[in-house]
C-alpha cells in the first residue's frame, strides 16, 4: 500500500485501491476494502453505490468533470490520474472539481506524481498525493511549500496578489 501525503503528514495506512475500468464484456470486480472507481463506471452505477463511504472515483486526464451526474460531495475521495507528469490536464480538472463543482472532500493526485509539481497541484486544489515510488517522500513537504506567495488566485488562495497587495 502506497504512502499518502496529506496536510497533516505522511500516512502509511491508506487502504484505497484504484480500480481500472472493466474490459468490455466483463463485469466490475470490486476489491476488498475501499475502492476508487473510474468516473465513467460510477456515472453508470450511481444508484448501486449511493450512500457508501467506501466508494470513491478517479478521473483520468481526459475525463471531464462536467460529465459527472449527481452530487460529488457524497464521495469521500476523488483521485485525478497524471498519466505523465507533463500532462497538465489534471490541474484544470482539480480546479473545476473544487471551484465549479464545489467538491470539498479529499482530492488526491495519483500516477506520475513527482516532487516539483506538488506546489502547483496544491494550488489547484489537491490536498493528498501519492508520490511516485522512486521519489523521496521526505522532500515533499519542502516542495509543497516552496513559494510563500503567488500572483494568481487559485483554490488555495482565493484572491490574486493584486487584491491582497493593496489590502
Amino acid at each position, binding site marked *: 500500500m502506497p504512502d499518502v501525503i496529506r496536510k497533516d503528514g505522511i500516512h502509511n495506512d491508506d487502504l484505497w485501491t484504484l480500480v481500472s475500468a472493466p474490459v468490455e464484456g466483463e463485469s466490475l470486480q470490486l476489491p476488498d476494502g475501499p475502492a476508487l472507481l473510474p468516473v465513467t463506471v460510477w456515472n453508470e452505477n450511481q444508484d448501486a453505490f449511493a450512500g457508501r463511504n467506501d466508494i470513491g472515483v478517479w478521473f483520468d486526464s481526459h475525463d471531464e468533470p462536467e460529465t459527472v451526474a449527481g452530487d460529488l460531495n457524497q464521495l469521500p475521495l476523488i483521485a485525478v490520474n497524471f498519466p505523465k507528469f507533463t500532462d497538465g490536464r489534471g*490541474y484544470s480538472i482539480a*480546479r473545476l472539481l473544487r471551484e465549479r463543482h464545489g467538491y470539498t472532500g479529499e482530492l488526491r493526485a495519483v500516477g506520475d506524481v513527482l516532487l516539483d509539481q506538488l506546489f502547483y497541484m496544491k*494550488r489547484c486544489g489537491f490536498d493528498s498525493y501519492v508520490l511516485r515510488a522512486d521519489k523521496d517522500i521526505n522532500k515533499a513537504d519542502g516542495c509543497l511549500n*516552496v513559494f*510563500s506567495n503567488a*500572483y*494568481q488566485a487559485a483554490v488555495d488562495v482565493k484572491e490574486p496578489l493584486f487584491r491582497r497587495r493593496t489590502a
Partner: protein
Amino acid sequence: MYVYDEYDRQILTERVAQFRSQTDRALAGELSEEEFLPLRLQNGLYVQRLAPMMRIAVPYGMLRSVQLRRLARITRDYDKGYAHFTTRQNVQLNWPAIEDVPDILAELAEVEMHANQTSGNCIRNTTTDQFAAVQSNELIDPRPYCELIRQWSTYHPEFAFLPRKFKVAVNASDSTDRAAIQVHDIGIEMVRNDAGELGYRVYVGGGLGRTPMVGPVIREFLPELDLLTYLEAVLRVYNRYGRRDNKFKARIKILVKAMTPAGFAEKVEAEWAHIKDSPTRLTREEIDRVKTFFTEPDYQSLENEPSALVSARGESKAFDNWVKRNVDSHKQPGYSIVTLTLKKTGVPPGDVSDKQLEQIADLADQYSFGEVRVTHQQNVVLADVRQDQLFELWKTIVPMDFGTANLNTLTDIICCPGGDYCALANAKSIPIAEAIQREFDDLDYLYDLGDIDLNISGCMNACGHHHVGNIGVLGVDKKGEEFYQVSLGGSSQRDAAIGKILGPSFAREEMPRVVSKIVDVYVERRTEEETFLDTYRRIGIDPFKERVYA
C-alpha cells in the same frame, strides 16, 4: 518601468532557490533528464548543439541601464563575452555551464531580472510594440497591460504543462503593428468600442512554425477589466482540449482550426461565463497602480527640428541618411525615437559583446532616461532622444557599430541562430544573412528599395519569422545538404499574411543572386509609391518565379 516590491522580490528569490535545488538534484541523479527538462526549460535553460543556451526574459522588451550592465558582467563572468538579442525581445547566452545557471539567475534577480518561462510548454514572455508610449498614433500605453499579463502568467499553477508553448503579444496602435500580434497564440489589440470604452480585440490561434497561420478574431471587444479572466478561459480550453498526442499538432492554432474559430470562441465564452466575475477580474485600482510605473519621463519643453539638427543634416549626408532611416518621430516635440541597428555586415544579427552592452547602457543614461527597448527585429531602441542631441549621438554610435543606417531595409535582416548554434536547425542561417548583406552594400540602392523585410530561419520552427518576411528564407535539409526555400509576400504588420513559396529550393551560394533577381523584378515593375509588398500584391508571384527560375 515596473519596479519590484517586496512581494515580487520574495517570489523571485524563492524561484531561484527552487531552481538551485532542482539543479542540485538533477546533477546528483535524483531527477532524470526527462524530469529535469521542463524545469530547466521554464528557467530559460536549454541544451543546444554546442552547449547549453540560456534565454533571459526581457518583459515586453524593456531594459534599464543597470540591467544591461549586469547582463554585460554575466556574459563576461559566465560566458564568452557576448549575448544575442532574440526575435521575441529576449536575450540569449550561448555558452553558460549548467551548474552556473542558479548563480546567473541569482545575479539577474538582484536587478529584477529572470529567465522565467522563456522556454517550455508554458506561457512565454509577453511582447509588445517597441515604440509603446512614445509614438503619437497610439490608443494607450500597452506596457501596464503587459505587466499585468506577466504577473498573471508567472508560475501560473494550472498552465505550467500546456500541450505546447504559448505566446501572447499586445498592440495599442491603430495604424501599425510592430508586435506581430496576428501571428501569436493570443494577439491582443487595444481598442475603444462605440461607447468610447477601452477594451481589447482578441485574436487566437495565429502562429508561425510548421503550420503558419494568421490568427482569427475570436472576440471583437473585451472590456478592460476582463483581460485576465478571459485569458484564463482561453488557456483553460487549450489546456484541456489541445492535442497532446502529436507535438506538431499541439499548438492552439490547430485546436482553433479543428473547432473552427466560431466553435472555439463559443467554448471560451462558456468557460468565461463561469469565471468572469471571479476575484481574478482586474480592478481599476490595480490597473492604476501598475500604470504609475509607466509614467512619462521628465521631458523638457522643446521644439521639433531645432536648428542644430537641421544644419547637421545639411552638412552630413551620412547623418541625414541615418536620421531618415533609423530615427522615428516622437509624440513629444523636440524628441525622437532612435533605433540602434545590430546588423553590421559580418556580425550575426542581434549579437552584442559585453562591451557593447555597456556602451548601450551608457548611451541610455546619457541620451534616453536610462532605458532601452529590445525589438523583435533584433535591434535596440533609445526611445527618448532629444533632437538637438541626435548628431552627437550619431557620431558616438558609428564607431560602436550601432549606426548602420539600414533600419527596415533589405539588410536589416531578422535571423535565427541557425545551424551554427541551434540543434534544431536544418541549415545555417547567419552565413546567408551575411552573404545577402555583402551583395547589397550600396546604401543608396537600399534606400531606393525602401522598406523590405527579409527574414531567415534555419528550420521550420521559424524563429527567424520567415513566413512573415516580405522575402522569407527557410533552411531545409535535402539528403544531408543545406538548401534554402524562398517565399514572398509575407507580412507581420496589420495586413498580416503568410508568404507564398516561390518554388524549388536553392543552394547556399545561389542565394544572393536569387534575392537580387527578386529585387530586380520589383524595381522594374513598381509604380512610384509602391513598396515591395505593394508591388508583389499587385502583380502576384509569377513574374518573380519566371525571373528567378529562368
